[in-house]
């Protein structure tokens, strides 16, 4: 990193000295610009948060009633300590943003997590021209190329239908914030009733309040005792697999929806009946396309296969570097295990409806 860079990695997170604020800090700081509400990007206890208007409600669910949250519409610029800051849709989950920073003619964009295929539960990714682009690389290998989302939804609905025919419940495991709602939006409610785990239902409410259309869902915990779950769809975080909570559904077929399901070995290791390839992160072609669309001459690559992506970009003549996050150095390689934590680990707090 150069001393003149608009952002510097510090022990608290990416710091903008000119404006005296952090982007997605991992420790509490006085002023945080937050790309989205996932736990590894939004940390508890900051003095003030700046986020998109679209993401305000979900961030509130995660950061608590006391948090001071400033919301700004996509594309609308605000001045933070002399730096012009605006947020632009990242297409990852509801309210997810890329952060655009402008100071004395230099433009930096931090993408946070993003994906380029549009879906019904958030504003679609929008390329932003910049000098320096900070990108994720969770799926930064050419083996990761997503099938179209509609094809995956069709597979999921077909799986649900065949479970219903076999008298089984369908238990679909997905991250509670974002992935779950995206899946819900693709389910065909004519097949059967849809239930959710408390962690999912709480966020469904925030999604609906923000104006996102989801099919009717019921909180599974509120169902009467002795109910038959055959033919139902239940959406729950992956931690629910094999728990006493999941056992009450009787005969059940498990499925997991994740980008990691691309690889046969990972599918088999997860011990689910079906693995659907669906990710809220950008795939390899999407990543390269997004980088190109920014027109950036400098690319800083973070969490995921950052070394691979940097090497590839350098071979293409770009000025690319790995930008250190707190995850770096803990492991000699960055692989499925790390991204899994990001995509698949359920939220630590608020498992049940309060």
């Amino acid at each position, binding site marked *: 990193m150069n001393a003149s860079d608009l952002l510097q990695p510090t022990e608290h997170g990416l710091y903008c000295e000119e404006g005296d604020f952090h982007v997605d800090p991992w420790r509490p700081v006085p002023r945080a610009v937050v790309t989205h509400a996932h736990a590894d990007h939004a940390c508890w206890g900051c003095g003030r948060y700046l986020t998109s208007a679209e993401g305000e409600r979900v961030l509130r669910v995660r950061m608590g009633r006391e948090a001071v949250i400033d919301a700004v519409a996509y594309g609308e610029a605000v001045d933070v300590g002399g730096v012009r800051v605006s947020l632009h849709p990242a297409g990852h989950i509801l309210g997810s943003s890329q952060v655009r920073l402008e100071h004395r003619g230099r433009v930096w964009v931090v993408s946070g997590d993003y994906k380029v295929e549009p879906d019904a539960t958030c504003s679609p990714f929008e390329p932003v021209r910049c000098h320096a682009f900070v990108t994720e690389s969770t799926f930064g290998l*050419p083996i990761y190329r997503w099938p179209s989302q509609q094809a995956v939804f069709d597979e999921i609905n077909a799986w649900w239908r065949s479970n219903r025919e076999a008298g089984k419940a369908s238990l679909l495991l997905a991250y509670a914030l974002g992935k779950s709602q995206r899946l819900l939006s693709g389910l065909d409610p004519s097949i059967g009733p849809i239930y959710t785990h408390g962690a999912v239902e709480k966020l469904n409410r925030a999604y609906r309040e923000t104006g996102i259309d989801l099919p009717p869902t019921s909180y599974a915990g509120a169902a009467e005792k002795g109910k038959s779950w055959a033919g139902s769809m239940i959406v729950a975080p992956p931690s629910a697999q094999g728990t006493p909570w999941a056992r009450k559904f009787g005969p059940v077929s498990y499925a997991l929806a994740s980008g990691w399901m691309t690889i046969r*070995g990972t599918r088999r290791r997860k011990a689910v*009946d079906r693995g659907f390839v669906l990710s809220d992160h950008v795939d390899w072609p999407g990543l390269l396309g997004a980088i190109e669309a920014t027109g950036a001459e400098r690319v800083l690559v973070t969490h995921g*296969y950052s070394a*691979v992506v940097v090497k590839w970009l350098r071979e293409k003549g770009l000025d690319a570097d790995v930008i250190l996050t707190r995850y770096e150095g803990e*492991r000699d390689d960055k*692989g499925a295990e790390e991204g899994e934590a990001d995509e698949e680990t359920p939220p630590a707090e608020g498992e049940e409806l309060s």
Partner: protein
Amino acid sequence: MKAFAELYTALDETTKTGEKVEALTRYFAQARPADAAWAVYFLIGRKPKQVVPSKKLRAWAAEAAGVPDWLFDESYDAVGDVAETVALLLPTPDRSSDLPLSHWVEDRLLPLRDADEAAQHAAMIDAWRSMDRTQRFVWNKLISGGFRVGVSQQLVTRALARVSGVEAAIVAHRLMGDWEPTPAFYDRLRMTDARDADHSRPYPFCLAHALEGPPESLGAIEDWQAEWKWDGIRAQLIRRRGDTFLWTRGEELVTDRYPELATLGAFLPEGTVLDGEILPWLDGSPLPFAQLQRRIGRKTLGKTILAEVPVVLIAYDLIESGGKDIRAEPFESRRSGLARLVESVNLPDRLILSPTVEATSWEGLTEAREGSRDRQAEGLMLKRRGSPYHVGRKRGDWWKWKVNPFTVDAVLTAAQRGSGKRASLYTDYTFSVWDDAGKLVPIAKAYSGLTDKEIARVDAFVRRHMVEKFGPVRTVKPELVFELAFEGIQRSTRHKSGIAVRFPRILRWRDDKKPEEADTLEGIRAMLPGE
């Protein structure tokens, strides 16, 4: 190919045998005989020899995908399988194909064997362009000779029986031996007329389950016969219409590999099938299995090896006599027929009646079993005197009652990533014990016996406690202790420790032990036979 790839996916996605049989039945019910014949061939584990080595698949796919070598390697590291990496990396297909499996195999795959490299290259690129990811994966596996899927021959047999209405035992019988995957073969497989048995064919082997409880649970000892369980190659020796055939349990026809037994056939009466064990045997006692391994896999058998490692057939059972299938008769009466036969053949350096182990009580037999290792046996076989010769592994009548394995406590000193299902996890371990100088010396490599949870914990440990890298191997801080089991132990000049162990595996993680408490080489040497 599409239907076969779908079948592959269905079989791969479930671990439940019921669902597997269901998927197989669905496939066979709709498949044309030409395709079904090949499907049977592949599913039961017969495969065409490698047509194109995976090294070439790799190079051609990387080129077609526009991916440099280093990036292919990175991708391979994440996937752990060349055929799959290739399938994932290639560009999206620009067309789809409904060509059947038999076409792909007969008109595309087999001709490639004699094609030059340029033609192979062009054919592969063309094939890939019309296949989705699963089809490519299956195709790549077939091409590189590595096709495997998680079904047993028994499940395939069950599905075929269900589809054809033919008894499973008859289907199993027809699947044995030498056959070509043709439509005519598939039709024969499903024939309800069962008088077809080709005279070369062995019977499905009757297999035993491991006895887990105490032998008393089997009831009165008088109902049982005990024999030594030998460590050789299970085989059937067939004499029909003046021909001799020797089949191993792996369904390999090995008549030519054991000339001693091939010539033995001429001494057997017409219409005889013996079940027994091929054992290396010299001067009246068995040689270690390692000696037999010197013969396995050799293309030509010279005079020296035949003199150094001669084999005998230890006869266990008589299942066809006078051209009649007598598998349904009680074991006792088959055994007396066998005894008379062995006696009349009278070639004690070729054919030996499996000796029985006599005892009047289970305690007595338990004691006798302790002598297994001194005879190079793995334990005892218990057979119910009234039992038929079953098809496959049926519970209840035949039990293998092995002596307890050797066990040692050893320290994890190095680890390597696994492949396939375990790619990206450190799952292949090297274990060491303390030598006379107080240093850790490797004693065994093992990669099974831990739960997925334990594997994840060991994996995390390896990542945090790496010491050095040697290629794919990472040495780790000696801290974790595991109890290992193994079946046999021998001196070895090829191993640094001076000993070689057979079938090592992890029994359990000894959380309670410190590395200092692991076993010593001296202690292990004491287990060597004759010490």
